[in-house]
């Protein structure tokens, strides 16, 4: 005996597949399927068999010539979850096999149900067929069944044209130069950033413009787990940052630090885009990043 086993690979295959005649009953079902209709056949006792058979399985009698349109929706009467599909299965990802009693049928059709996960499956659930693009008269003309529609996603999008005149224009022109402009109310002795024309506290006119440094302290923050096109990654941190010399915090992104390490009192500094890329926009500041200085005690 050789020490290594002598093993040969051997394949059984019928090149091109078997040609099979369907007969009038199965043929009718498959022809209707090609036209994206589901039909059953009525037995002498009045039951509707889906898929149709040539005989009544209960009595052995031939079925009648009456075909009845059923479905397309149906109810799952039993199901089993396939976590790892085989090559021959109709779906590549996890799915369920189900017995589906189509509306108007007295027997159940076996087919695949594409559900998001095993928790989305239950006996009694309603499913609808999803058809192949070009039906050919084959049971796989139904790609699979899918759970009944119970929710939809509605996209919302509206476009606006904003014009920066007045104080916003003053502030953004500063940002274009790499400078953050605030305004100081003479009466209240408070510095507001971004620059504004009037004091929100006393209503007085703000005439005094002053440049503020791009360093500050985080007063509060939020960790966001939903993606946002403006954010560097998920999760991202948005924070209120009290710029040094300002009395009102400004909202901005915080990055270059793991989200769970962001804290109140943390010292941060603006990360600007290169000068050549700057425009009159807050996009000039990518985000704020920690400076590494000791935390500040917030009053």
């Amino acid at each position, binding site marked *: 005996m050789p020490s290594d086993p002598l093993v040969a690979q051997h394949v*059984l295959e019928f090149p091109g597949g078997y040609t099979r005649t369907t007969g009038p009953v199965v043929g009718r079902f498959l022809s209707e399927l090609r036209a994206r209709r589901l039909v059953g056949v009525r037995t002498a006792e009045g039951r509707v068999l889906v898929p149709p058979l040539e005989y009544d399985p209960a009595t052995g009698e031939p079925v009648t010539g009456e075909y009845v349109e059923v479905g397309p929706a149906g109810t799952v009467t039993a199901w089993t979850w396939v976590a790892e599909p085989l090559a021959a299965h109709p779906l590549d990802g996890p799915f369920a096999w189900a017995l589906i009693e189509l509306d108007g049928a007295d027997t159940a059709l076996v087919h695949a149900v594409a559900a998001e996960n095993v928790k989305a499956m239950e006996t009694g659930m309603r499913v609808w067929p999803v058809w192949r693009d070009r039906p050919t008269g084959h049971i796989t003309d139904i790609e699979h069944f899918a759970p009944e529609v119970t929710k939809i996603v509605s996209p919302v999008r509206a476009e606006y044209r904003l014009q920066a005149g007045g104080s916003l224009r003053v502030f953004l022109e500063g940002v274009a130069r790499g400078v953050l402009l605030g305004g100081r109310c003479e009466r209240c002795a408070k510095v507001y950033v971004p620059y504004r024309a009037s004091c929100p506290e006393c209503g007085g006119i703000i005439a005094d413009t002053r440049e503020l440094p791009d360093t500050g302290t985080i007063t509060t923050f939020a960790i966001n787990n939903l993606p946002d096109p403006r954010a560097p990654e998920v999760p991202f941190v948005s924070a209120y940052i009290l710029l040094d010399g300002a009395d009102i915090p400004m909202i901005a992104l915080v990055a270059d630090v793991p989200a769970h390490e962001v804290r109140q009192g943390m010292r941060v500094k603006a990360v600007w885009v290169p000068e050549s890329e700057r425009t009159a926009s807050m996009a000039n500041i990518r985000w704020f990043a920690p400076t590494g200085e000791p935390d500040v005690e917030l009053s």
Partner: protein
Amino acid sequence: MREVAIVAFAQTRHTGHDTGLSEPELILPVINEVKERTGLRRFGFTCSGSCDYLAGAPFSFVSALDALGAWPPISESHVEMDAAWALYEAWVRLQHGDLDSALVYGFGKSSLGDLRTIMTLQLDPYYLAPLGLDQLSYAGLQASALGAEREELAEIVRRSRADGRANPYALDLPDPEGDDGLVAPPVTDGAAAVVLAAGDLATRLTSSPAWISGLAHRIEPHYLGMRDLARSASAADAARAAGVGKGPVEVAELHAQFAHEEIILREALELTGDTVINPSGGPLAANPVMATGLIRIGEAAQRILDGRNHRTVAHAAGGPCLQHNLVTVLEG
């Protein structure tokens, strides 16, 4: 009706892997064993059960005849299904009255291919096979239709595997780990042989023949959605026709490849808590496809041949989800 008995039974020590033996080499020892046990060198009729799709070679049963000594020509037949049905054919042949002995054997090497997908080929080519529905999938649908408790199913698997470990012919399988849900029957290579004898010959060959007092098989629609998968009407019909309920059943060997099938069969055969189910470990402990059903009959008969029991029942199944059921009642 002629009185026919099982007078000898032999099976291989089944393996969970391909040992490299050819099919004639696999069956030769069991044929020789029943020949020695009965002293018979020739049989009036020979019938075997196997499936060409297991080996992927047409007429693979013909080469298995090499193990028999088929020259001068013997009276021989074959069923392309479990050898329990070969036993049924041999029993019918003995009813003709002109022959007194029959050799029945079955064999299968399910290690050669992927049994899960090979069993897809037994489904109808119009509605089921094109979907690629595999053996585990349709068993899963039946388990869902029955809706049995997971703990009850797990206990059946644990009991079967423990019994299998105590059976030198079955596989030495550990308890399934965790809560796996559907436990598939093991891949198994093996063979079995039975000798039938009619009337006086049976009592001359052994002091305690296992008389076949009832034997019947019934079938249901093939398509899974056309029947109530939670019940087995055909197993119940076959059990009634074979007369299972005419006396107490000490032991029942059931061809239950999945735990939920045992629950369905216990109900169909109306077995009570007094009946010991699958003391051999059953198909969950060794499942040489095409011989598994005949082994159920052999195991049930052996208990009578050994004098351990007086009335036992064996069940064999074919087709998807217990479509076709054969029930044998054996009495000492």
